[in-house]
């Protein structure tokens, strides 16, 4: 039962990693990495249920906070690019 769940989690992580490799922009890659990380966290929780030991569950708390820090810093990095040039809308008919 838990083996099937771990296999599905690994499949989800692989599918998200494909988006991480293909992704058209930096933001897509970061969100794909987030989904990969959450699949990994679910696999860790399932493995803890499989073995019955709570040793690795502390890792989940750390991973949640590390993932948040990574996403926030990457979002800040994205916003510090050059500002988009404003395009003036020409609504007058050209004479």
């Amino acid at each position, binding site marked *: *039962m*838990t083996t*099937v*769940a*771990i296999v*599905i*989690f690994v*499949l*989800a*992580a692989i*599918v*998200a990693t*494909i*988006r991480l490799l293909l992704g*058209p*922009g930096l*933001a*897509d890659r*970061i*969100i*794909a990495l*987030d*989904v990969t990380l*959450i*699949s990994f*966290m*679910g696999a860790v*929780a*399932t493995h*803890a*249920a499989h073995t*019955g030991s*709570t040793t690795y*569950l*502390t890792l*989940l*708390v750390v*991973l*949640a*906070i590390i*993932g*948040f820090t990574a*996403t*926030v810093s*990457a*979002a*800040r990095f*994205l*916003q510090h*690019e050059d500002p*988009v*040039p404003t*395009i003036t*809308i*020409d*609504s*007058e*008919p*050209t*004479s």
Partner: protein
Amino acid sequence: MNTIAGIIMILGALVALLAAAGLHKFASPYARFHAAGKASPVAFLITALGASLSLGLAGTGLLVVASVAMILTLPVGVHLMFRAVHRTTPPTLAVDDLVRAERAARIAAGQDRGDT
């Protein structure tokens, strides 16, 4: 009890697979972020529920702490990513052709002299 926990964990894994498939399904970045940001914390919550059914009280405590940390932080991170994409994407509608066409039609119909 272990069978029920296993079934719940498989359900959580399927939701995670759904989140990963949503990254490939949608065309715009906003739709992709929406799919990933909604489905992945739900996947982890369902998996944590199944694991805590199987682990007992000590494991449940740690899983609740991890789930609360994820619920508090992940929507904020996805929202910041939405905002960064929105602020760095150039506008797609550069010239409004409809305003020009309506103005030209009014000039052709004699309702507008075209000098204002």
